[in-house]
């Protein structure tokens, strides 16, 4: 079983609402990531963090924001959801120094904005 948890698994929400996608890991990993993936498509990095109080933008521009106040927690927030934000959001974590066995992924949150 993965030691990284995302909630909710599915979310349908109206346009203009503020939402927060939760991601927590119990492995003590310093590095955490958010990827965006449209159904059946490739993964695009939108945010990453190397540790507490560290956040960086990824390769794909996103209107979302992230925070890293605790090592184990890396929530993603959309201040005002729009239909163009409809997608799957995947959270992952890894060790700081060495990719080791790569990233461990959560099961994802499938977001639908109506």
């Amino acid at each position: 079983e993965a030691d990284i948890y995302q909630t909710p698994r599915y979310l349908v929400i109206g346009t203009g609402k503020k939402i927060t996608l939760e991601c927590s890991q119990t492995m003590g990993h310093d590095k955490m990531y958010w990827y965006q993936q449209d159904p059946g498509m490739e993964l695009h990095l939108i945010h990453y963090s190397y540790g507490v109080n560290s956040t960086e933008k990824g390769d794909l521009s996103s209107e979302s924001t992230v925070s890293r106040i605790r090592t184990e927690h890396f929530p993603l927030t959309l201040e005002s959801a729009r239909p163009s934000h409809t997608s799957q959001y995947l959270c992952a974590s890894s060790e700081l120094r060495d990719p080791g066995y790569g990233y461990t992924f959560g099961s994802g949150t499938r977001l639908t904005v109506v």
Partner: protein
Amino acid sequence: GESVGLHLPTLSVQEGDNSIINCAYSNSASDYFIWYKQESGKGPQFIIDIRSNMDKRQGQRVTVLLNKTVKHLSLQIAATQPGDSAVYFCAENIAGGGAQKLVFGQGTRLTINP
């Protein structure tokens, strides 16, 4: 600007046959490569990895081959089973400027026919 998603390449094989999934990577400086398997509704799962100082690595029913000259990576799955049906992504670890991040390839949808 808005990105245009590409449909994933597909590969269909008969149950029991061997399958080969190919991937081209972009960065000559990438030092580590990973294959992930993503089943419907789940996050990507680690299958096998290889470092840039190797050209072949074997796991249980899987083999990864790395050709750095042409920047090509392949995943061979022996004696495919119905449970192998999934989307397979290659990923390269790109390091530079003190940062490391995993960049995913386009992915291939593998279908196992009974």
